[in-house]
C-alpha cells in the first residue's frame, strides 16, 4: 500500500515558453525527501481533490518580473530559518491563504472568485484553495514559491537571469521539503513519500 503523502508541490508553467517552465525544471532536480509532485500548465478545479488529500501544498510558479521590483506583500518566514528580504527580483517563498470571501468556506458565487473566474481552465492558487475548502471541507496550509521570469517567449530553455536564480530557488524548495519531512516524522514514521 502506497503511503499517503502529507505534502504536495505543484509546478505551474509551460515548458515550451521559456522561463515559464522554470518550476518544472526546479522539480526535476529535487532530491529526497520528496513530497508528491504535480506538473501542470495551469490550475484547474480537479486539483482540489489532490489538495484535499494533503496537509501542506506549495505552488511553484514563474512571474514576470520588471527589473528591480518585488512581488507585493512580502511575508515573514514561517518555519524558522531566516532569510534576507529580497532587494530585487529573486525567488520568493511566502505563505498563501485561500481567497477571502463571505461564509465559512471563504467563497460564494458573489465573491471575487465568482467574478474573476467564470471559466474552468485557469485558477489562481488562492482560488483553488478556496474551492478545495468549499468542496472538501478542508484545505491544506499553502505556500507559493515565485520565480522571477525574464523571457516567456516561444522555446525551451531558461534565460540567464532565471538560471542565476535557480540555486536560491532550489534552496528554498528544499527547505520547504525539509519542513515537510519533520512534520511527517511526527505524524507517521516513513509516511512522507
Amino acid at each position, binding site marked *: 500500500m502506497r503511503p499517503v503523502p502529507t505534502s504536495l508541490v505543484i509546478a505551474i508553467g509551460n515548458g515550451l515558453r521559456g522561463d515559464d517552465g522554470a518550476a518544472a525544471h526546479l522539480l526535476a532536480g529535487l532530491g529526497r525527501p520528496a513530497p508528491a509532485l504535480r506538473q501542470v500548465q495551469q490550475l484547474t*478545479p*480537479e486539483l482540489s481533490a*489532490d489538495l484535499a488529500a494533503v496537509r501542506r501544498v506549495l505552488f511553484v510558479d514563474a512571474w514576470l518580473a520588471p527589473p528591480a521590483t518585488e512581488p507585493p506583500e512580502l511575508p515573514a518566514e514561517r518555519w524558522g530559518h531566516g532569510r534576507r528580504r529580497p532587494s530585487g527580483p529573486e525567488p520568493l517563498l511566502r505563505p498563501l491563504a485561500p481567497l477571502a470571501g463571505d461564509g465559512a468556506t471563504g467563497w460564494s458565487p458573489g465573491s471575487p472568485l*465568482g467574478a474573476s473566474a*467564470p471559466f*474552468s481552465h485557469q485558477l489562481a492558487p488562492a482560488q483553488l484553495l478556496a474551492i478545495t475548502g468549499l*468542496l472538501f471541507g478542508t484545505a491544506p496550509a499553502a505556500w507559493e514559491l515565485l520565480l522571477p521570469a525574464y523571457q516567456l517567449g516561444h522555446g525551451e530553455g531558461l534565460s540567464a537571469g532565471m538560471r542565476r536564480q535557480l540555486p536560491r530557488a532550489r534552496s528554498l524548495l528544499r527547505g520547504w521539503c525539509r519542513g515537510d519531512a519533520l512534520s511527517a516524522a511526527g505524524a507517521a514514521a516513513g509516511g512522507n513519500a
Partner: protein
Amino acid sequence: MTRTITIDPVTRIEGHAKITLHLDGEGRLADARFHVVEYRGFETFCEGRPFTEMAGITARICGICPVSHLLAAAKTGDKLLAVAIPPAARKLRRLLNLAQITQSHALSFFHLSSPDFLLGWESDPAKRNVFGLMAADPDLARAGIRLRQFGQQVLELLGGRKIHSAWAVPGGVRTPLSAEAKAWILERLPEARATAALALALHKRLLDGPLQREQRCFGDFPSLFMGLVGPRGEWECIDGAIRFVDAEGRLVADGLSEDDIATFLGEAVEPWSYLKFPYYRPLGYPQGIYRVGPLARLNVCERIGTPWADAELADFRSRSATTASGGRIVTSSFAYHHARLVEIVACLEGIEALVNDPELMEGRVRSRAALNRNEAVGVSEAPRGTLFHHYRVDDDGLITRVNLIIATGQNNLAMNRTVLQIAREFIGEPVAEGASIPEPLLNRVEAGIRCFDPCLSCSTHAAGQMPLRLELLDAGGAVLAERCRG
C-alpha cells in the same frame, strides 16, 4: 435593410468564437453563423518535420484533447511504417482513449453545460458556471471533479502526464501499464461508476421536466451521422470502419476506410471563419451536412457491447429517438449531453474490462520498422467526434503535406443550423430595430453551440470575466444597438 446580431465571445467552449445572427429587411432571422476567429496553422508548420514527431507535435494542438491527436498521429505513423502493432499496444491505446473520453465528457457535462441545466437559463451569468455549481450543489460538483480527475489520472498513469504525453508512438506505445496503476484504476472505478449513475439520473429527471423544450428545439433537424463502428456494428472509439446513417436510420455508407477519405468527405471554406466545413461528398455542399461525436456514435452503432451501457443506450433511444426512424435515431443536438453520459458508462465498463484483461499486461508494446510508405491516413474517435490525420512524407520521412480533419469542423454546418433554430425559437420575430434582447435568450443560443462541446484548438486563457457582447449592425456594419454582459 439587413441587420446582424453578434455574440462575441461565445463562453464556456474550448476556444474563441463569436455568433452572428443575420436579420433580413423585415427583422426576421435569415441566417446564423458560428465564426471561429482564431488561427493556429498546425498543418503548415508541421511540414518539414519527421513523421515520427507528429504525435508529439499535434498533441500540442489542444490542452483538452491532446490524446485524440496523439492516437490519430500514432495510427497514421503505424501505416507509414506498414506495421501491425502488438495486441497489448492496441489495448493500451484503447484504454488511453476511453480515459480521455471520460475526462473530456466529465468536463463538458459538469463544468461547462450543467450550470445551465441546474442553475437555470435565467440565473445570473456571473454565477452560472462551474463555480456557481460548486456553491449550489457541492456534492455534485465534487463528484464531477473527481470523475474528471479519474480520467486524467488514468492518462497520467499511462502516459506519464495528464496532457501532451508522447506515450503513443508509430508502432505502438512506449511503456506498458504498471501493476500499481492497474490497482489504482480498479480501486477508483466504483466511485466513477457511481458518479456516472448520479449524473444520468439527474439528467433524465431534467429531460423529463424543465429541459423538454430544449430537447425539442436545440438543433433538432435531419442530417447524416458519421462514426466508427466495430466489425459487428458495435460502438467503437479507435479501431473499426466508418459508417454513415441518415436521420431515418438507413445505412448510407458502411465499411468505409479512412484511406478512401477523399471519396466520401469534402471540405468547403467560407470567408468568415477559419473553421472548415466538411461535408459528405456524394451529397455535395452544403446538402452533405453530417454530425459526428457522441450523438453520432450512438446513432451509427447497433450496440455498445457492455451491459450497463447497452441498457442506457436503449433508454436513450426510447426517450429521444424519432418515430420516423423506428425509434432508432436521435436527431436533437441537445441529446449530445445525454449521449456523453451514456458514453461515460461505456468508457468505464470498457476500462474495467481492459484492466482485467491479462493480455494488456503481457508481451511487446511496440513494433519497430523503417519508413515503408509515403502517404497514410489515420483515424480515431476523439471525444467530440471522428478525427482524421492525413500525412504525405518524402523518402526521408519528412512531412510534405498534412491535413487534419477535426471533429468540431465536421459539426460546423450542424452548429450553424442549431444556432438558427434556437434563435428562431427564443427570439421573437420580427426583431424590432433597437429592441432589447434578454441575456437568457442569448445564453440559449450559446448553449446550442455548447451541445457540440466544440474544441477550437484550445488556447483560451480566461482573464477576468468573459463578456458577452451583442451588436446590432446594419448592412453597412454600423452599430445600431449594443448589449454587454458583465
